[in-house]
């Protein structure tokens, strides 16, 4: 593997194809950004849950049709699923050994999460427009 010290190849050519370098720090950074964003979002959403708890259909619809409540829920859906995708990816990368197993597992889990996020958002749009 080790190149002879008098190799004519450039450092970039030696490194290319060997390392991780699929993406840099942005995965780590987005994990933190979404975490910070979710502190107020989760607290607001829990307040909304408290108000919805025990309410009937009409009341629940009315609460979610409030633009502020709908905005909080939509932002939570986006941020939460994004945060979940980043987090689950790291866990899979750490514990699944084979390249193919790892890549296919990450793709399948992300596909399911994207489907759930889309269904959640579309349901919210439907509720808001009832």
């Amino acid at each position, binding site marked *: 593997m080790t190149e002879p010290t008098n190799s004519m190849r450039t450092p970039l050519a030696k490194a290319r194809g060997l390392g991780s370098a699929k993406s840099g720090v942005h995965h780590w950074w987005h994990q*933190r950004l979404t*975490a*910070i964003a*979710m*502190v107020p979002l*989760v607290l607001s959403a*829990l307040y909304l849950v*408290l108000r919805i*708890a025990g309410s009937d*259909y009409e009341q*629940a*619809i009315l609460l*979610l049709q409030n633009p502020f409540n709908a905005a909080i829920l939509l932002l939570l*859906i986006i941020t*939460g*699923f994004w945060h*979940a995708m980043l*987090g*689950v990816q790291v*866990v899979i990368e750490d514990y699944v050994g084979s390249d193919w197993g790892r890549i296919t597992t990450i793709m399948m889990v992300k596909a399911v*999460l994207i489907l*759930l996020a889309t*269904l*959640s958002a*579309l*349901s*919210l749009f*439907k*509720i808001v427009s009832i």
Partner: protein
Amino acid sequence: MSRPRPLSPHLSVWRFQLPAVMSITHRITGIILTSGTVLLTVWLLALAFGESSFNLVSLVISHPIGQIVLFGYTVVLFYHASNGVRHLFWDFGKGLNIPGVYASGRIAVAAMIALTIGFWALVFFG
């Protein structure tokens, strides 16, 4: 690899340590929270589909088993949130020493318990 290489970490030879247990619990709770998002999606879908499906989901939620699942989900959520804030402090370089890690760990567990009790007190008596 001609000879067996050392394996790390040697989980079985270590005494129980709070930071290690809290670290793996953070991952486990993260996976549970991710799996539990399906409940949020089902609830929103039921509400979007109309009154009868919403009433069915409400019936499941109000059943004791539904209540236990929701209670468990809030415990998991409050753990992951409290310990997540602990991680954010570490990201800013705060509390990165052995006594600090233990102290913030105990604070995170206490915050989880306080938030869980507070939330459910508001649900039933708020």
